[in-house]
């Protein structure tokens, strides 16, 4: 019995990591919407990135063909995932790496903690990675007496500010330069008290602060953007060089990746390395991409561990419609074009995966019941689908997940009654007349009863017309 159960697709466990918010999206969004500074910061940042990304995508004549190829490669990956992972394991091992398998966040954290302990180091340097945030690795390391140091500038801002990331690509997008300066002055040891809020000055402060840590830490933890099954090659795409530091300087490198990050062939990178930078940072190519296959004697880490993580991905894969969420290459283009994200920011989504992709990925990783409000955190405007470099039909997924979400009893009753009336034209016509009557006897233009009152709080309802269209038609 146990054996069968273990082998079935399973959602991510609760109580570890950051996939579940403490409150519903509407409640968290309400608070965020009241933060005028946040709204300004997000509006400025998302408008900037939309313009940059649009310009460099416009330079690529075959963008739609690249999107189609990227989408198909990812569909192929999912269709052949077990065999590709076995191939990846074999190639990485042959190149001198050690492959570990983690069924969930708890197992992955235990593996990483044990590996770090074995090195004797009480500190690790980290490359920004969504997956290690998803599993709560930093908390697990701290619990084991190991200090994780985030080296990405935005992650450092978040860590020093004792804050939470709010964007996949730019975790401190909710902070402006003045706020970042304040955080550095308050929390960065040895910082120049004359620090200005010039971005170049702030970046230089991070460079000075982290340099000695890079040189003196013997273990690094990274995620992976891509892992090539055919060759065993791992790829990390970054901008600042902190990734190169982590992937090059320490003796031991531990890379944690979700199982869906594997791609079949070396050649497949030619698609994703064109799609990802233009869709994410709006650059033709990000400043640095590192690729490594196992270990290289005399160059870089001499010990390499790859942790392959499930943590709910098998459950996502089991849903034939929902599995396309696993195509995601974490570019965050959907966040930058989303009118909901632009106004609420990332924290409202509760999970480390915010925005449209988070609204479809988090509920699937945890089971919809645990993130029941997220599939509704969208007006279904469709901007995310157009922006996605691997063509994830996020609106379709949102609608699909809403169908699985638990529904409030009162709403279900209303929907059932509406569906019944709408399937009986005489009843429907009567209901239309009743709508008019109830509106005429109520306060015109204002209040609807709850739960519809939220809409009329800020808007007037139309005056009911003298006759419905069908009454007019019948009389003409």
């Amino acid at each position, binding site marked *: 019995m146990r054996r069968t159960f273990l082998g079935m697709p399973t959602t991510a466990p609760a109580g570890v990591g950051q996939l579940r918010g403490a409150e519903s999206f*509407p409640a968290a969004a309400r608070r965020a919407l009241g933060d005028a500074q946040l709204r300004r910061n997000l509006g400025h940042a998302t408008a900037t990135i939309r313009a940059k990304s649009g310009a460099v995508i416009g330079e690529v004549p075959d963008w739609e063909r690249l999107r189609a190829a990227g989408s198909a490669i990812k569909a192929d990956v999912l269709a052949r995932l077990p065999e590709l992972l076995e191939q990846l394991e074999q190639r990485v091992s042959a190149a001198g790496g050690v492959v570990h398998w983690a069924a969930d966040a708890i197992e992955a954290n235990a593996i990483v903690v044990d590996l770090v302990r074995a090195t004797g180091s009480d500190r690790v340097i980290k490359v920004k990675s969504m997956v290690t945030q998803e599993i709560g690795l930093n908390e697990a390391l701290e619990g084991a007496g190991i200090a994780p140091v985030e080296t990405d500038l935005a992650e450092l801002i978040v860590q020093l500010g004792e804050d939470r990331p709010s964007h996949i690509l730019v975790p401190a997008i909710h902070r402006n330069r003045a706020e970042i300066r304040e955080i550095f002055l308050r929390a960065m040891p040895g910082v120049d008290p004359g620090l200005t809020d010039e971005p170049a000055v702030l970046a230089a402060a991070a460079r000075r602060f982290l340099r000695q840590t890079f040189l003196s830490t013997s273990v690094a933890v990274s995620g992976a953007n891509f892992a090539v099954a055919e060759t065993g090659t791992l790829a990390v795409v970054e901008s600042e060089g902190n990734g190169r530091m982590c992937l090059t300087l320490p003796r031991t490198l531990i890379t944690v990746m979700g199982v869906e990050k594997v791609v079949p062939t070396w050649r497949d990178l030619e698609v994703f390395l064109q799609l990802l930078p233009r869709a994410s940072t709006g650059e033709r190519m990000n400043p640095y991409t590192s690729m490594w296959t196992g270990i290289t004697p005399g160059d870089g880490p001499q010990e390499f561990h790859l942790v392959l993580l499930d943590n709910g991905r098998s459950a996502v894969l089991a849903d034939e419609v929902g599995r396309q969420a696993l195509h995601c290459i974490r570019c965050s283009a959907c966040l930058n074009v989303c009118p909901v994200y632009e106004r609420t920011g990332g924290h409202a989504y509760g999970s480390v995966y915010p925005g449209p992709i988070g609204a479809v990925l988090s509920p699937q990783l945890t089971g919809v019941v645990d993130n029941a409000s997220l599939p509704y955190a969208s007006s279904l405007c*469709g901007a995310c689908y157009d922006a996605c470099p691997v063509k994830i039909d996020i609106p379709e997924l949102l609608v699909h997940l809403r169908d699985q979400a638990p529904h409030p009893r009162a709403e279900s009753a209303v929907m059932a009654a509406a569906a019944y009336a709408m399937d009986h034209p005489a009843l429907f016509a009567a209901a239309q007349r009743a709508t008019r009557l109830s509106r005429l006897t109520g306060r015109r233009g204002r209040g609807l009863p709850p739960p519809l009152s939220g809409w009329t709080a800020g808007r007037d309802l139309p005056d009911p017309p003298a006759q419905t269209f069908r009454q007019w038609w019948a009389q003409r």
Partner: protein
Amino acid sequence: MRIALFVTCLADTLFPEAAKATVRLLERLGHEVAFPPGQTCCGQMHVNTGYQEQAVPLVRRHVRVFDPYDVIVAPSGSCVGSVRHQHAMVARRAGDVRLAARAESVAGRTYELSELLVDVLGVTDVGAFFPHRVTYHPTCHSLRMLRVGDRPVRLLRAVRGLDLVELPAAEQCCGFGGTFAVKNADTSTAMLADKMRHVMSTGAEVCTAGDASCLMHIGGGLSRMRAGVRTVHLAEILASTEQDVVTDGRGGLVVGS
């Protein structure tokens, strides 16, 4: 040409002027309009709120009612989007392959008003007269589900007397999203606030669009602010002529008391 009007439940109940204008416009262009009385609602609200099973009878009804017609038009990008992108899916998920095939067939004959005029009837100048400063909001479903592109703008440019002004950040959602406006009322309101700011920045007297639902949302906000900008459905502008001008609240898609 004989054209079946898919009126949409919202226009039927709350915005009959948009539907009447569609009829007047098509008849003025020399076509015959039929109104299949068995129609009610396409079921989009049920599908988008997570009640696909309850949408199945509505899809079945819609397909049965409209299957006899060669050309079907709705003054709504959103409802046509539902017919085109959701009906067959709902049927397939309910295991009804035959219904799915029929739904696809009906969807292939169903057009949003600007699509019908430009693509099927081949007109951009419909002989309309509307002497007002107008800005056009491309609704999300007409823009991104149907890809109507610049068809509505081409139609508006050909309207005599009409001063068309560009809406800043036009492609951003107004925040309606059906039950989104209820379930996430605060976020919806924030989106609406930006849309209204952009509408008012144009100095237009009239904000138009191809969807009564989005206009209800935008118009409801503008009315509450006493902004002095009214919302008028694209069909009403196109139906308007020197002899039959949309002049006041009852003729337009005016909201509020």
